[in-house]
């Protein structure tokens, strides 16, 4: 396994040269810390209600902010009318005219204004910001503002309409058009004997982090603009703030508050929200302004998972060996580019699934519509394209008269195979073992037969219950796609204090995924210290370096590797300069060495930078190469029970087996999988965004957008296999997004098994079951 390089330096500002590595630590406390089910560091404060989230903060003289948004689905803003009966002088009022710098969120493109000025592209676009100390008056004032809009005549609300140019949001309606092509498609088609063609769709999905988005901004005594809030990517926010305010990074600070869930939803939008809070405080002379959304505004205005439609043509020889694969994958990007190009590229790369196929073509497009922009959501395009290929594999299996299991077994990637993107599968991969365990733990084969018998008997007796079982096999690449990690060149530091306490200094943001604990475990292990001696420094851009955004299942694997290396450098420095024994030193010896070192040096810290392994080479222009340093592999089995009388689908069992390299903390890892699986169950069976007639979410309340509750979720069985193949610490791989990929296809397969239907879109609501049953009845009758 090639090892990535991590460049390092010790204590910038000291004369010391870096010495790589050191003898391995041998303290008993640290031994076995990687892989230990230690309790989360953030547990007690959260359980006791002591952790402070942004809405819990109250600053002296604080104002509350509110946002006035467009109503039409794109158009021209002609005039803002401030109604009578409001003492407008008592309000802080901000419009686009108050933006001192660039009026655009700094993402891949700069097409999204922070505040719309003239032309706007969707309903719910921010136009005007208000702040006041009294929240009641603030609500009245928002109501008293009228935006005079000239609505676009033909907004675009679907992928098909965008492609057919029934209305144009941007010229041509396509943000990106990617092509990944391998082998000879025509030759593959000529060789194929059995074919399947299908169209698959997935809907938008709302993140429903239980803490809505929020920020507080103020100008401190030193004149620095400080923005604190609920966010995943402090340096993204900083980038937008410096551009929007025209300030340099030294006079803007971004601070991460305890964050009540993100799942990708707090990747790009917080930049927008932070800019709003910043503009208000700057207009208010630096007075603190809190801007926290209520649930309805959060659901209306913030990004969702991209809706998708995928056309798949696939063919195999009679033996089931894949001959060709042709995928046309389209994502609904909404009205601005935001993150759609990178969501699309991950979707395209994962579109062939975890199967070998010599002749393949994947075309991927992200299109513009008049919906608010869609964005990052756990899985980032992969759940959509993996859903389509998995369903197509089921369809092909049926056409072949083979079981879905046999077809997968025949084509799954094994060591030495080249994946469609062009990556050689490494020797540690054992996808068969993952599949075997999933079959065994779920009792797949026995249940498949038993459920078929049960359904036949119930049908014969006129009883309404049906049972189904479905399988999905897949992999998920960890870290930024392609050259993303090269561009990021993430950095992190480890710092020791005079008492021997150590801090992880990184921009990685804890939002529930457990990164603080896992990063501390990694550093404590590398330094031979008990976990209590290591903490994560507050994430504040004036202290922490840019370790990259907290996304893409990269924190444990990539940032973990960086902090591990930094810890080794720090230890080597102490051995060399402060007499730390090279082996057998406990935390007291470590503290003594820190004290000696700091007697003669201003500080004790080491910094390292990530450099991806040499084999991760990716050519973005032709989508060829090795897009990810590590893949996690999984096989998921879903069991459902359906009552034909109510058409309700109940999940009766779920088994998730995955190979994720070294499991750094089994409790945290299992929690990530369980949580991801349940979000996937919601995606499959519960969560349907209803679009209003101006293209915003109409069911933007928790009363009518339903996420799974305890009543819906039986215990999910989770199993890990650990192969030493990951590039992260001790062989760890990223795993946070993986569990989002499997539930959708596995559950739909189970539903179609139970009913004998061919439902091809998610979510499957009772009305979809009903419609499919009538279509099926017609087909059978015909």
């Amino acid at each position, binding site marked *: 396994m090639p090892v990535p390089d991590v460049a390092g330096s010790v204590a910038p500002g000291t004369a010391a040269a870096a010495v790589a590595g050191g003898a391995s630590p041998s303290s008993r406390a640290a031994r076995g810390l990687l892989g230990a089910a230690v309790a989360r560091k953030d547990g007690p404060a959260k359980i006791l209600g002591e952790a402070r989230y942004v809405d819990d903060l109250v600053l002296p003289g604080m104002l509350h902010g509110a946002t006035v948004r467009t109503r039409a689905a794109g158009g021209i803003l002609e005039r803002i009318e401030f109604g009578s009966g409001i003492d407008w002088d008592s309000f802080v009022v901000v419009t686009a005219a108050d933006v001192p710098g660039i009026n655009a969120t700094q993402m891949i493109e700069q097409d999204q204004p922070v505040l719309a000025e003239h032309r706007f592209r969707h309903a719910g676009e921010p136009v005007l910001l208000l702040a006041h100390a009294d929240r009641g008056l603030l609500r009245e004032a928002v109501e008293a503002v009228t935006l005079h809009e000239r609505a676009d005549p033909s907004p675009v609300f679907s992928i098909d309409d965008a492609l057919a140019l029934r209305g144009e949001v941007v010229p041509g309606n396509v943000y990106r058009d990617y092509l990944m092509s391998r082998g000879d498609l025509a030759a593959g088609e000529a060789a194929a004997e059995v074919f399947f063609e299908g169209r698959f769709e997935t809907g938008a999905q709302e993140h429903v982090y239980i803490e809505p988005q929020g920020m507080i901004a103020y100008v401190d005594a030193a004149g620095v603009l400080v923005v604190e809030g609920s966010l995943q990517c402090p340096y993204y926010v900083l980038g937008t703030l410096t551009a929007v305010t025209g300030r340099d990074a030294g006079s803007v600070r971004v601070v991460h508050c305890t964050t009540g869930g993100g799942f990708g939803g707090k990747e790009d939008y917080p930049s927008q929200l932070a800019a709003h809070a910043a503009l208000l405080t700057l207009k208010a002379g630096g007075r603190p302004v809190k801007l926290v959304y*209520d649930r309805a505004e959060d659901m209306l205005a913030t990004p969702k998972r991209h809706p998708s439609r995928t056309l798949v043509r696939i063919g195999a020889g009679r033996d089931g060996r894949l001959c060709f694969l042709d995928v046309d994958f389209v994502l609904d990007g909404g009205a601005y580019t935001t993150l759609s190009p990178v969501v699309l590229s991950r979707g395209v790369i994962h579109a062939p699934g975890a199967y070998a196929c010599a002749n393949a073509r994947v075309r991927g497009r992200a299109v513009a519509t008049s919906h608010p922009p869609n964005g990052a959501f756990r899985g980032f395009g992969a759940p959509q394209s993996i859903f389509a290929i998995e369903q197509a594999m089921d369809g092909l299996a049926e056409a072949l008269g083979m079981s879905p299991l046999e077809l997968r077994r025949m084509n799954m990637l094994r060591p030495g195979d080249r994946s469609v993107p062009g990556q050689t599968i490494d020797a540690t991969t054992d996808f068969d073992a993952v599949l075997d365990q999933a079959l065994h733990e779920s009792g797949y084969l026995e249940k498949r037969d038993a459920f078929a018998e049960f359904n036949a008997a119930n049908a014969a007796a006129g009883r309404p219950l049906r049972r189904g079982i479905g399988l999905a096999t897949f992999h998920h690449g960890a870290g930024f796609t392609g050259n993303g990690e090269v561009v990021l060149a993430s950095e992190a530091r480890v710092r020791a204090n005079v008492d021997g306490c150590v801090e992880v200094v990184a921009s990685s943001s804890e939002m529930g995924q457990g990164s603080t604990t896992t990063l501390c475990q990694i550093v404590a292990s590398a330094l031979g210290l008990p976990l209590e001696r290591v903490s994560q420094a507050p994430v504040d851009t004036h202290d922490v370096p840019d370790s990259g955004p907290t996304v893409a299942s990269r924190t444990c694997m990539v940032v973990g590797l960086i902090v591990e290396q930094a810890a080794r450098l720090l230890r080597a420095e102490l051995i060399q300069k402060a007499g730390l024994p090279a082996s057998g030193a406990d935390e007291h010896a470590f503290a003594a060495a820190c004290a000696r070192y700091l007697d003669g040096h201003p500080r004790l810290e080491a910094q390292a930078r990530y450099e991806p392994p040499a084999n991760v080479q990716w050519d973005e222009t032709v989508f060829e190469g090795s897009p990810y340093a590590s893949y996690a592999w999984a096989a998921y089995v879903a069991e459902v029970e359906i009552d034909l009388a109510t058409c309700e689908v109940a999940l009766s069992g779920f088994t998730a087996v995955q190979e994720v390299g070294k499991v750094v903390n089994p409790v945290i890892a299992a929690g990530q999988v369980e949580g991801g699986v349940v979000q996937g169950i919601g995606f499959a069976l519960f969560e349907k965004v209803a679009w209003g007639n101006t293209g915003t979410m109409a069911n933007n309340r928790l009363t009518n957008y339903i996420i799974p509750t305890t009543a819906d979720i039986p215990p999910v069985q989770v199993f890990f296999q650990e192969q030493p193949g990951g590039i992260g610490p001790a062989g760890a791989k990223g795993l946070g997004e993986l569990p989002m990929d499997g539930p959708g296809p596995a559950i739909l397969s189970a539903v179609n098994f139970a009913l004998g239907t061919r439902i091809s879109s998610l979510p499957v609501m009772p009305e979809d079951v009903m419609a499919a049953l009538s279509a099926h009845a017609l087909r059978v009758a015909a």
Partner: protein
Amino acid sequence: MIPAPDLAFTLNGRTVSTVDGSIGAPSMRLLDLLRLHAGQTGTKEGCGEGECGACAVLVDGELVNSCLVPVGQLHGCTVTSIEGLPRVDPLVTAFARAGAAQCGICTPGMVLAARALLDRVPQPTLDDVREALAGNLCRCTGYARIYTAVLDAATDAGPGKAGGR
């Protein structure tokens, strides 16, 4: 003008009343009394309309969503929010051990929902737990670790185990 009748109740062991000004208008939501007036921010607002349970507290031992309760309804009641839960409650340890809090925003409400259950049913089954927590949404955990924590807390506090280890 007829003065509003006096209103008093117990909040985390302390008496609050309109007499001493520790309660404002009777129409104020209990959630706002806790968060804005008492500065006890362990109770969270996730939806403001009774759907998520992040704001759940105990009123006379019953689980209620504090975003739906005007303080005027609480005369003579005993209100316990997470700040009033003993730090040594077996649920606190069990949640920590099981990794049942991820982002933590649902956790105070979830712990109180579990407390209400265990007070009623000291040795619950998994189905009891699933039913008792069905009004509390968690988007992070998928609930599995929460089930484990509640069942563990019940075992820890159970008659066979108390003081036995």
